[in-house]
């Protein structure tokens, strides 16, 4: 049986191919537009917070000990004599070229500060998500495979604790137990004081820098300092990832093809880890992406507890000093990274899941 397509209409395959390319480029354009609009929205919010809410934005930037001359220079430098719309466009232009103003507490451009502090946050959050994935996925799968068992109950409770334990509290308790009592881990900070500044910063990530410099002592010292904060962060991503994995797996294990595989006599381990687990890998990528973005945010509290020299610590120090440029710069960077990771995992989902194409 062969159906000859009439010459007037293109073959179904060709039409399909063409419309798919069209749709894909349309989707990419749409994606870029939403991404740009979201970033613009983020800028609009930080602009609003910095320029509209404070009664006197100049005072918020220069502090109340500034002389009238300093005040006037700052006012003109901020362009506050211009209409709000013009101010906003200037603000967006400045932010896009990396000009986020000076920090009054460090006296350096905010963008430079952020560049110095970011690697520490990145290092901690990345190790945190690795811990969360390495433990959360197997735990979630096992919980679903043995639904109702004591292991399942424990994992459910852990999942809910992830929503109800304050990160800063867990960090403090961790310090009290594992640092003060048991001496298993290093204390606050990234390194012991006598190692501080010995490794030339190449990437800013101490685990890499110390290995590049061949300083294994410093590497292990950095590991001992990093373990606890990264585990605290990892606990929160573990709780979320395990909860979502369990729920995805339960959906799959109820499907008919799983029953068929079982009836055919496929070993349970293969049913769980191949038949049921393979289809959930794609949605899991989105969950992991969301969780990673959430860790960048959650690290703010953990960094404060562990005196970790990352963006979160920079942000909170700036908050307490009423250093608005630094606060808004850090908000902007964390927000942008957060949005970016979210959108990337969304795109990955669409690319990897044939049904969403």
């Amino acid at each position, binding site marked *: 049986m062969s159906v000859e397509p009439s010459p007037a209409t293109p073959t179904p395959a060709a039409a399909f191919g063409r419309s798919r390319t069209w749709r894909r480029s349309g989707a990419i354009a749409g994606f870029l537009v939403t991404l740009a609009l979201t970033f613009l929205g*983020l800028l609009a919010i*930080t602009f609003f*917070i910095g320029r509209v809410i404070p009664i006197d934005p100049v005072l*918020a930037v220069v502090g109340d000990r500034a002389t009238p001359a300093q005040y006037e220079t700052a006012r003109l430098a901020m362009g506050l004599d211009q209409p709000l719309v013009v101010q906003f466009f200037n603000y967006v232009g400045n932010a896009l070229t990396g000009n986020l103003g000076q920090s009054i507490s460090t006296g350096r451009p905010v963008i430079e500060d952020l560049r110095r502090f970011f690697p520490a946050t990145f290092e901690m959050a990345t190790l945190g998500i690795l811990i969360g994935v390495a433990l959360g996925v197997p735990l979630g799968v096992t919980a679903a495979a043995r639904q109702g068992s004591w292991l399942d109950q424990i994992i459910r409770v852990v999942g809910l604790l992830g929503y109800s334990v304050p*990160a800063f509290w867990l960090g403090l*308790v961790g310090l009290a137990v594992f640092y003060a009592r048991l001496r298993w881990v290093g204390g606050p900070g990234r390194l012991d004081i006598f190692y501080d500044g010995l490794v030339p910063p190449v990437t800013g990530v101490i685990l890499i820098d110390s290995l590049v410099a061949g300083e294994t002592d410093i590497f292990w010292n950095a590991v001992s300092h990093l373990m606890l904060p990264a585990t605290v962060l990892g606990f929160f991503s573990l709780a979320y990832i395990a909860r979502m994995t369990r*729920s995805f797996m339960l959906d799959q294990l109820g499907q008919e093809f799983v029953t068929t595989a079982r009836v055919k006599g496929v070993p349970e381990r293969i049913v769980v880890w191949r038949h049921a687990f393979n289809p959930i890998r794609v949605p899991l990528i989105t969950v992991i992406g969301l969780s990673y973005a959430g860790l960048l945010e959650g690290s703010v509290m953990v960094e*404060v507890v562990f005196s970790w020299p990352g963006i979160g610590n920079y942000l909170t120090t700036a908050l307490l000093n009423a250093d608005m440029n630094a*606060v808004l710069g850090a908000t902007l960077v964390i927000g942008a990274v957060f949005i970016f990771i979210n959108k990337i995992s969304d795109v990955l989902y669409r690319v990897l899941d044939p049904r969403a194409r």
Partner: protein
Amino acid sequence: MRTRDWLLADSPASRLQANAGRAYRIVVALLANPLSVLGGLIILALLLTALLAPWLAPYSATGQDLGNRLMPPSAAHWMGTDELGRDIFSRVIWGSQITLTIVLLVALISAPLGLVIGAVAGYFGGWIDRVLMGFTDIFLSLPKLILALAFVAALGPGINNAIIAIAITAWPAYARIARAETLTIRNAEYIQAVQLAGGGPIRLIVRHILPLCTSSMIVRVTLDMAGVILTAAGLGFLGLGAQPPLPEWGAMISRGRTFILDQWWVATMPGFAIIIVSLGFCFLGDGLRDVLDPKSEGRT
């Protein structure tokens, strides 16, 4: 038994009977789930503690007793004392009032705001919908804690500003829900009937659309309360929320941070209160979702 029959009647004779019957069925379904009962009891305990704090607390929340500084937990001081000799147990009890106030005010500000924005966007559609939802989506795609921190930075530290900042970051999720619900109801026949009878958009939204959004809103608000408590405690911990000497739980943990290595109880005890109350809202929210909004189960 007769009241039960009246409550469960298949064809209620009055609006009162229908409403009472519905409430009865929800309560019965909730009571069947031990975790939601536990959650409900925790929230009830929080309410009672906050109301009866003057009678329950053995000591004052702010009274100092420098002779009894940093005493470990004992029969006289169940949770020990802090660096000014204040009884931590009493402070935790008084602190429940602050937590309850924050939770209630955030819910009362953000839920109606989100409801109205979502319902208006869903009902009118078109460019109103696009503008409002674009705005909502931008807020939704930003990290909540960071946004709240930035707002508090601009507004100034303090408990009122913390509540405002948290409410500002909480409404977008409610707007999304209200819009989705409105879209499914908008073209229903009874809405057209009201329109034909001359009901204007305000009357329609307030009297006929919003009431139908309430059950999914209640579920979502209850589930979100754990997050609200954590954010509020976080702001207090950073010194941006409730100011000393207010016995706010997060601020208490912050004071105890200095002594965490030796006097562990100062920072640890208020944390347990936070965890228990947040867990209570999680349990109750999970149970309410199973009863009121079963279709969204497991997909939060």
